[in-house]
């Protein structure tokens, strides 16, 4: 079976292979009556990209004799073959060796011919049970617009969150209301609906998906110079990126989005201003400590209920393989870099308090007139703002600054003055060695969970 393309179309096909290579390690080719389709799926099976070339793009296109033809080949081999296409004038694809190998003949300038034979691994293909009809929310825009969105984020970013409202679209690299790493630089871009060719947002939604696959397809859309359409429903259901060119090339990228159940929200992490005076924070926190641990514990319980539901819904993975052997790997959820421990609000306040207290102590030390009597050491060495501190939640130190009690004067003769409090310096290298217990406040934000906890007792 023979398929030939002339130079420019061959270059487009090479670009398609390069885009799909960023997705997965294997290329699935399907030859049907209408044309040739290339597909790739990523390692966690959370994104499937497919690029369809219509028959009209080919000069010679042998229709598959009996039924559609499927094959799977290694992506690395394909990339090596379609690497340098600037000199190519004619490309010929042949299925040889009883359809066990794919032969690629590239006729280049100056009478050079490059020939490569790629062996076909097997005849698997990807079936998606996802309805590719239009979703409720559609964003249609030029590739430049989506490139602008992608470019404000670092190349190392992993996820993109879109908040679509009726009057604005906000692209972020974090989810509003979740906890992020201390060193994380939040980024967001706000766009107006007028910038899009078509902006249809029925309901305000927030979706989060992997940016790597998005960028791969964006690259292809850019080289086609076409408009891209992003269609989605709401968080948790898949979103689709479609690129269409002249009716000859159709690309579809299906990505799974983060489900809202996997994210822990807290109102404390929404934007606030740095205007609260220290005393107010102290008062507010002491009130909170005495109250029952209401909302945080309830939220955790609610999460547990939801966990049970999630487990049951994960029976049917998002994408299936042909021939129908259900893959043993469950669909991996993409979780944001947030952890799901919820008892954070109190501790954040506690730390803020300790910082406030530390400052107050330093002030008291400075402003108090130098006396022979040192103040009683009421608290352990207070941390400074840059020192990472881990405290047992049970013995959080007292939040009041040590007062210079007037009755210490009278005890001069009998009591031996205590040794002066060690003032911790800013740069303690081995700070953890001097702390009583190391209890991490929560699982490290860097640990990603690829599957929810299925322990029913946890």
């Amino acid at each position, binding site marked *: 079976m023979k398929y030939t393309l002339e130079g420019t179309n061959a270059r487009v096909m090479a670009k398609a292979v390069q885009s799909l290579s960023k997705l997965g390690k294997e290329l699935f080719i399907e030859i049907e009556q209408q044309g040739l389709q290339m597909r790739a799926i990523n390692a966690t099976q959370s994104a499937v990209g497919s690029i369809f070339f219509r028959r009209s793009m080919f000069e010679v296109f042998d229709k598959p004799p009996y039924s559609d033809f499927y094959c799977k080949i290694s992506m690395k081999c394909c990339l090596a073959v379609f690497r340098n296409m600037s000199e190519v004038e004619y490309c010929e694809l042949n299925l040889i060796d009883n359809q066990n190998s794919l032969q690629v003949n590239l006729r280049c300038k100056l009478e050079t011919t490059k020939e490569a034979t790629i062996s076909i691994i097997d005849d698997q293909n990807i079936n998606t049970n996802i309805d590719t009809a239009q979703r409720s929310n559609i964003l249609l825009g030029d590739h430049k617009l989506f490139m602008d969105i992608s470019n404000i984020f670092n190349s190392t970013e992993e996820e993109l969150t879109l908040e679509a409202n009726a009057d604005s679209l906000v692209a972020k690299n974090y989810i509003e209301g979740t906890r992020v790493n201390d060193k994380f630089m939040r980024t967001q871009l706000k766009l107006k609906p007028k*910038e899009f060719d078509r902006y249809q947002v029925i309901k305000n939604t927030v979706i989060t998906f992997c940016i790597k696959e998005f960028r791969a397809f964006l690259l292809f859309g850019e080289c086609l110079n076409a408009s891209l359409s992003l269609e989605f429903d709401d968080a948790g259901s898949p979103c689709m990126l479609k690129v269409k060119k002249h009716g000859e090339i159709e690309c579809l990228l299906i990505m799974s989005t983060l489900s809202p159940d996997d994210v822990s929200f807290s109102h404390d992490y929404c934007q606030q201003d*740095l205007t609260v005076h220290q005393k107010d924070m102290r008062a507010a926190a002491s009130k909170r400590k005495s109250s029952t641990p209401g909302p945080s514990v309830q939220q955790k319980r609610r999460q547990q209920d939801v966990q049970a539901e999630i487990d049951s819904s994960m029976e049917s993975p998002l994408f299936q393989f042909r021939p129908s052997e259900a893959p043993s790997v469950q669909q991996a959820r993409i979780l944001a870099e947030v952890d799901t421990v919820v008892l954070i609000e109190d501790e954040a306040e506690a730390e803020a308090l300790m910082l406030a207290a530390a400052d107050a102590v330093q002030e008291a030390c400075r402003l108090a007139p130098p006396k022979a009597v040192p103040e009683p050491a009421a608290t352990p060495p207070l941390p400074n703002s840059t020192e990472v501190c881990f405290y047992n939640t049970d013995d959080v130190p007292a939040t009041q600054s040590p007062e210079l009690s007037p009755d210490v004067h009278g005890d001069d003769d009998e009591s031996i003055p205590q040794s002066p409090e060690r003032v911790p310096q800013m740069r303690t290298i081995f700070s953890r060695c001097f702390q009583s217990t190391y209890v991490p406040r929560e699982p490290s934000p860097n640990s990603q969970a690829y599957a929810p906890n299925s322990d029913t007792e946890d």
Partner: protein
Amino acid sequence: MKFRAQMKDPLYMREFQNIIATLSKLSKDCLMILGAQQMHLIVNEDQSSTSSPLVWVSIAATEYFPEYVMEAAHPDQDYIVLIMSSANLGRALSFLRGGGANSCKLKLQRIQFPCISVACSLLSTSSTEARDVLYDVPVTIIPASDWPTYVVPRVPPSQLALVLPSLRLLRSLIDKLKNMSPSLEFQANSDGELNVVATSEMSTVTSRFKRLLPRFLSADNDREASCLVDSRKASAFFTALQLANEELTIAIDREHSIHLQIDVRKDVMLHSILPAVCA
């Protein structure tokens, strides 16, 4: 504790972005000291890096920021001292380079942790609408108790200073000389001559810059001054510079240090100190 500043002029925004880009090439962390009327940005203040020199920038707030509000944590404190990643700040301000920015706002906020929010309003070429980009650069606030560790460096006393009209030649020169010799000697002369000498086993290369404008900085009328500095540090400084301004003042403190100063504009100055090394 409050800090808010706004920039409107595209030229000033571009200069500010160039300054931050320069600092981000010199070191990972940047120290920012916000005074009532001045902003200081300091890089490598502890001079622990062997390959990057101490560089600091003093900006008069009124020059770049028509709106500048600074309130320290405590009424009798004069400054806010912050440490942040210079690369992050550089990325946040990257849109100011193109000249498509309408305005840029800096604000100190606490959203889970303290950060400087950089909000730019952009007008890109492909759109008619203004877009808003917001970056939250995480910062570490230094409490007043640790301020003695972080001070704005002082300009060292020098005997002789020369003004170099264009640093482009000096930059390429030092770039090539650093491979020859680990140390460079700068010799200044009251006749307006600057000699840059690199000595290696096989050769001695001297480059002479003539007819420079001298300035005597010490009381006794010295005729000449010279100092030996690390060539890698000097090269790092010149390679990192992203400023449009080309004029450089070299002040030599005999056997102690070389002080380089670039006046980006009146009241916006970039300084660097190259300490002397043993031969």
